């Protein structure tokens, strides 16, 4: 207050003009005291008050509230100035008597703590749910990479991404009747019974209002309630309410959006709202507005992916397709492999192969000598009912098939092996002359064969004849030393020989063979060679004439005397001499009358 001070200054000076005659002695001072003492004291009092303060506490008490209000309205200086004092005072108060403060703030403490804990817990639970849900997913992996890349703890990344919610359904409800005016549901979700929900919600709201605010003027509003994992946000207007069913933790922005939408609807639909009589048709037009409430939220950072159930359905569908495709592929592969095998099979030519829905259609050439294609496929484990084949017969020149055909046509005995070299058929082993002759003279060779080589074949008699031949040849006629006489024993043997040979002749004739009998006479080694040769010839001739007498005629029957030149051999010398004083028999059986050459 410098101005006021300035005004105050001249006053004492003016007063000082009175006692200006200072030089006067003490009487004068005394006089002055007597004359103006009372005034002087009053002046001094005034002076002191002016010096000390311009306001008394009483005056200050009157003016302080206004002053505080004025100053607070003007700027924040007062708060700033008071803050340190208030802090000190508060600390001091807590130090001296904490009970007071505790009592004072108790009413706000509980709700504040509950609110804070509630919000934190809801956030944590939500975050944990999301974290668990995503920890193994692709999204979770992406977040881990983000955490690693940015150096931010994973938990924070999860919080950043996972504080999600979804506005699933928005209802516009007529305030008075609780009837549903309009409703939208997020894509992919099944709409709940919106009309029942809106009625129930209205009933609940009525109940809440009746129950909690029956006495007071101000009506309590049902703003939010939770059903399972969903939160229902309700925004109330005079004519209509809007309610949003939200899964997850809805942020404040959702409510703001609802408020704005409700205001817009009230603005544009005033008349239909006031005149509503149960016909909700005019409110169809609010759907885009309500839709926005769904969309706005969709645009925030929430998972836009499919829900778990559709995801499982998709995976299952894909699996089924994959399994079916791989089964079909495997089946097709098996068929192709089998048909390849078929194609490689001699005597089978596939010309056309077509795959139908379930069956294969096949046409081709089939050599009658080839393996049966259907049984081949069946052996490979294929369902031959799925094959429709049309075969045309043909002749294959595959060596194996030429051989197969040759074997079938020539029917060789087991002792003969056929082989093919170029277009010549080689026969090896042993066979009866009649079979060999048949082969050589054969007029029709199997297709693909133009020559037959039988040089590898040994002729053998048919077993029957060989047996009969042995029968004859086992006999031997013994002679005494130097004798040609045929005793009774010898004659009996000759009867047997004659019978055996006759049997042989009969069988041979039947089978177009010719039999000849060689009669070989021998001697022991005593005596000269010339004598012995003669003796042996005589012995053979003797036997021959006897046999001729036994009815063996008209056949070649030769008698030879070989002397000692071609002896029969034995282990003992005495026996050796004895067995060579004999006549033995050799039977020649030749095939066919027209065939020359002898076969032993």
């Amino acid at each position, binding site marked *: 207050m410098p101005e006021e001070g300035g005004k105050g200054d001249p006053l004492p000076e003016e007063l000082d003009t009175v006692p200006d005659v200072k030089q006067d002695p003490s009487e004068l001072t005394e006089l002055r005291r007597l004359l103006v003492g009372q005034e002087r004291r009053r002046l001094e009092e005034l002076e002191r008050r002016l010096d000390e303060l311009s306001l008394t506490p009483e005056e200050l008490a009157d003016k302080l509230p206004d002053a505080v209000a004025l100053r607070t309205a003007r700027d924040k200086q007062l708060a700033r100035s008071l803050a340190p004092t208030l802090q000190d005072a508060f600390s001091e108060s807590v130090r001296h008597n904490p009970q007071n403060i505790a009592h004072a703030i108790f009413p706000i403490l509980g709700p504040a703590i509950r609110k804070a804990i509630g919000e934190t817990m809801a956030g944590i639970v939500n975050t944990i749910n999301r974290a668990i849900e995503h920890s193994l997913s692709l999204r979770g992996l992406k977040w881990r990479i983000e955490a690693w890349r940015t150096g931010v703890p994973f938990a924070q990344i999860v919080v950043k991404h996972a504080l999600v919610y979804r506005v699933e359904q928005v209802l516009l409800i*007529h*305030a*008075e*009747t*609780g*009837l*549903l005016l309009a409703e939208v549901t997020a894509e992919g979700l099944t709409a709940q*019974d919106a*009309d*029942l929900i809106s*009625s*129930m919600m209205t*009933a609940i709201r*009525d*109940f809440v*209002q*009746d129950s909690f605010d029956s006495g007071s003027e101000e009506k309590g509003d049902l703003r939010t309630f939770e059903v399972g994992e969903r939160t229902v946000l309700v925004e109330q207007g005079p004519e209509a309410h809007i309610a949003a069913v939200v899964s997850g933790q809805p942020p404040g922005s959702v409510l703001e959006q609802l408020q704005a939408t409700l205001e817009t609807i009230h603005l544009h639909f005033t008349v239909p709202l006031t005149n509503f*009589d*149960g*016909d*909700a*048709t005019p409110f169809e037009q609010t759907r885009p507005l309500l839709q926005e409430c769904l969309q706005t939220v969709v645009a925030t950072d929430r998972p836009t992916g499919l829900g778990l159930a559709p995801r499982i359905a998709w995976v299952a569908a894909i699996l089924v397709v994959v399994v079916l495709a791989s089964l079909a592929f495997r089946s097709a592969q098996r068929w192709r492999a089998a048909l390849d095998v078929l194609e490689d099979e001699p005597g089978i030519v596939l010309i056309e192969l077509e795959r139908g829905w379930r069956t294969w259609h096949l046409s081709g050439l089939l050599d009658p000598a080839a393996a049966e294609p259907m049984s081949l496929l069946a052996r490979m484990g294929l369902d031959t009912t799925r094959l429709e084949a049309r075969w045309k017969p043909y002749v294959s020149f595959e060596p194996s098939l030429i051989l197969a055909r040759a074997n079938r046509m020539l029917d060789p005995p087991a002792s003969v092996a056929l082989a093919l070299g170029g277009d010549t058929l080689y026969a090896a082993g042993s066979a009866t002359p009649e079979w060999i002759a048949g082969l050589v003279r054969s007029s029709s060779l199997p297709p693909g064969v133009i020559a037959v080589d039988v040089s590898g074949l040994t002729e053998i008699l048919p077993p029957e004849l060989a047996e009969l031949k042995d029968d004859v040849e086992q006999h031997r006629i013994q002679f005494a030393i130097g004798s040609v006489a045929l005793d009774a024993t010898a004659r009996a043997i000759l009867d047997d020989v004659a019978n055996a040979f006759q049997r042989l002749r009969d069988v041979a004739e039947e089978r177009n063979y010719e039999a000849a009998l060689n009669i070989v006479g021998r001697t022991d080694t005593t005596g000269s060679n010339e004598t012995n040769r003669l003796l042996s010839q005589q012995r053979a001739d003797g036997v021959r004439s006897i046999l001729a007498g036994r009815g063996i005629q008209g056949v070649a029957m030769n008698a030879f005397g070989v002397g000692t030149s071609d002896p029969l051999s034995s282990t003992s010398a005495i026996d050796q001499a004895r067995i060579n004083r004999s006549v033995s028999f050799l039977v020649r059986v030749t095939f066919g009358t027209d065939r020359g050459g002898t076969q032993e």
Partner: protein
Amino acid sequence: MIQKKICMVGMFATGKTSLVQKFVYSRFSEKYHSTVGVKIDRKQVEVEGTTVKLLLWDLAGKDEFQDVPASYLRGSGGLFYVVDGTRRETLEQLYALHAMAHETVGDVPTIVALNKKDLTDQWLLQRDDYDALSDRGLYTLGTSAKTGEGVEDAFLWLAAATIKS
């Protein structure tokens, strides 16, 4: 399509819930279940070529401890009163209920179902009662939630009345 809110009003145990159950689900149970608060059901009907979806507010019946809350009645397109024909007091109390409801919702179509008609040997209402009701402009119909008699008619009549009003 028109939607209408219909309130079922009456004393306790007059058969409000049973009538709704019979009408909506075609079922009836002898057991008595006291309705707490309100239960809402829905049924779509065709009246005179118009589809009307009725939202049936089955209110808890009035008893000595509890009034029918007026707030539930607000916005009703029609009132469905239910009287138990074997308990005279349910009719006597109806007039008070009607006065209260009228104050809240004004003139809306109203029907009085004289229920439990199957219990003929216990029936207490007489000619005078019917006359008294019709003197007050209340349309009445005998119903039985047990046999189904009159149930469909009563609701359809009220539905038709609501769309005409």
